């Protein structure tokens, strides 16, 4: 039973590595590289989802997130044809305080995570495959209304985007 643990560590390491690379890419400041690394992070995340028996979500993650959202990002980067950013003066004070705050937050979160004892069920009976998720969403009746509202939300987002990106005609 040590395979899933090994896989967990692998995927976890990959996710964190790619995440770090999205944020602070030592090689080039080009946004495209960070976009690519974001895609890789999402795929690593999908792997983790699989480990957590959330198979449907892993697929959705890759399909929607990696596929659609990142493509949008690339479109915008291409549209704005951002060049390599020339390195502006490093605002050391900003960096130090920023990372200090983030470290503080990380320390606090881990401290509480490892402090609290969570009741964990060793072997879950529930498998997050499509049928189970479908039943959960539509028959239990709890999430039917939110589902409809989300669809409306998407519509609103579309209208918003169209309006925003219209050229000022007047």
């Amino acid at each position: 039973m040590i395979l899933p643990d090994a896989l967990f560590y692998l995927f976890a390491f990959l996710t964190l590595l790619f995440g770090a690379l999205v944020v602070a890419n030592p090689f080039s400041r080009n946004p495209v590289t960070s976009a690519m690394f974001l895609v890789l992070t999402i795929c690593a995340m999908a792997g983790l989802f699989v480990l957590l028996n959330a198979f449907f979500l892993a697929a959705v993650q890759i399909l929607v997130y990696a596929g659609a959202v990142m493509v949008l990002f690339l479109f915008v980067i291409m549209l704005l044809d951002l060049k390599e950013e020339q390195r502006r003066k490093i605002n050391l004070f900003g960096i130090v305080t920023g990372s200090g705050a983030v470290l503080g937050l990380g320390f606090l979160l881990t401290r509480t995570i490892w402090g609290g004892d969570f009741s964990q069920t060793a072997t879950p009976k529930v498998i997050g495959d499509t049928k189970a998720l479908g039943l959960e969403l539509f028959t239990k009746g709890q999430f039917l209304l939110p589902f409809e509202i989300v669809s409306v939300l998407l519509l609103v987002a579309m209208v918003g985007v169209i309006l925003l990106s219209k050229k000022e005609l007047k």
Partner: protein
Amino acid sequence: MSALLVLLLPLLAAAGIALVWKKDEEFSAQLSIGAIALGFVLSLGLFAFTPAKPQEFAFNWLAVGDLKISFGFLLDPLSKLMLLVVTGVGLMIHIYSRGYLHGDRSFSRYFASLSLFTFSMLGIVLANNLFMMFVFWELVGVSSYLLIGFWFEKHSAADAAKKAFLTNRVGDFGFILGILLTWLALGSLNFTELASALDGKALPFASLVEPLNRLVGSTNWWTVHPNVLATLVGLLLFMGAMGKSAQFPLHVWLPDAMEGPTPVSALIHAATMVAAGVFMLCRIFFLLEIPGSHALEFIAWTGGVTALLAALMALQQNDIKRILAYSTLSQLGYMVMAVGLHAPGPAMFHLTTHAAFKALLFLGAGSVILACHHEQNIWKMGGLHDAMPRTWWTFRWGTLALCGVWPFAGFFSKDAILASALEHKNIPLFVLGVFVAGLTTFYMSRLVLVAFCGNARSEAASHAHESPGVMTWPLVALALPTLLAGAIGIDAFIAKALPSEHPSPNEGLLNNLFAPFNHNILAAGFGLLAVVAGWQLARTLYTNAMSDPLPEKIGVFAKMARDRFYFDELYAWLIRVTQETLARLADWVDRWIIAGFVVRGTHGTTELVGRVLRLVQTGSLQTYAFLFAAGVVLVLAWQLLGTSPTH
């Protein structure tokens, strides 16, 4: 009922003049003279025909809880006598001032305020309780303010009016406190009730001591002893009299009050207003002589000091009206001294005679001033005795009465006071009285010798001529009581009103003339001796002297006397130090501390805080994101680190 009429007539006259406000003199003069003439006749009626027993009728003016203030009249011999004095002398002065102020622009305003004055004076005389007396006390203060400040265009007159009113107000402050204390201790303000509440009770204030002590005692450095309270009541009420009768500490306003027209000085500062204080002392005499209260000694000595001080000041005055003003002050000192020597009877007697001859002297001075074209300095007059015969002999009678020469009224009343000083075994006051009598004769004869005898010193004096009839007839009318008042037994009449007096039977005119001699030969003898001494000294110094020889003789003392012993400067300095600095401090605190620091302070701090917060809005996304993150971290830290993680 007729008393109400006497009181209200002048008020109606004043109101009538004020409302109609027609400019012609005739109407206002006739109205107010008619009112006071009718008043005089009625008070004569009251004086003669009503029974001696005091009657009282009052109606309830204000009744709230245990405070019952009524508005009523107490008619007893004392008030009837004063009624006569006020209306009698007042009538003379009304007639006189019609001539004196002829042609003045605000003639009707003068007569309106004169009637208002008479109304308030009558109010004091007739009042049957302390509160009503206080009400009219202030009204008299205001009407004297209006009269003294009659020529308000003159700076000196306006200031004199203000000074008079304020000094009176200081006296009234003491008076109201006295009233409050009597009301708290004895529960009522009505004279008859107070008298009944007092006699037959050992120490009325004893019951009050314990609670008041606890209340005031919180400052526990002085305990309240009943005698202290009794004296306190006496002194506070005396303070009211002090203000009105210009006694020692509060005497500064009287000389300046000469700024008003002469009839006003005559009316106010000779006959009535200043006498109100002495009348009040006699009226509340039973409050003053509560066993254990030392108020009376204090009063006696204040009177004595005032008499001496005023006499000294009068020595060096050159303005004829100021000399008479100071002589009034010293005579008032006599009366207050008499009250202090447990002798309200002689005090009232002296008050009545003084009213007559002092009014005469003032009016005489008025006619002299008018004759010499408003010249008031005696060293600019001279040789008037043949130019103005009628004024001359009436003035001479007044002077003789004032100095206390035998047949005249002044002798009898002053002798009565000196006799009571002897009876009361108060030798120092007796000596002081005799000395002041000498001084009085000295400065009065100085005035007479310089102003009337010798030869004219100024061109205006040389062709002075007798004043018109309307002015000289009142002089003659006043000269009669000056001569006869002493002997016709007024003191016997007064004695009936004052319980503490032993009424001596009034045995006819003739033996009254010699009563003072066989009554107390020592007092009469010394009195006359002082008069003769004073006359001789003045004669040697002043017979047709061109300038005042006294300053070389007594040097700096003369200057001090002329400058009134620098009391005015002392008070001015005192006010400047206490009140002005306090006012300046209060204004400074108000402007800077409360309005400035507190208000501007809060205004300033809010602005400062605003400016600090602005610094945070740097506009860069980074700082916002950072602040956001830092905020989250702090909250989490505070929350999580607070509770121990081991749960």
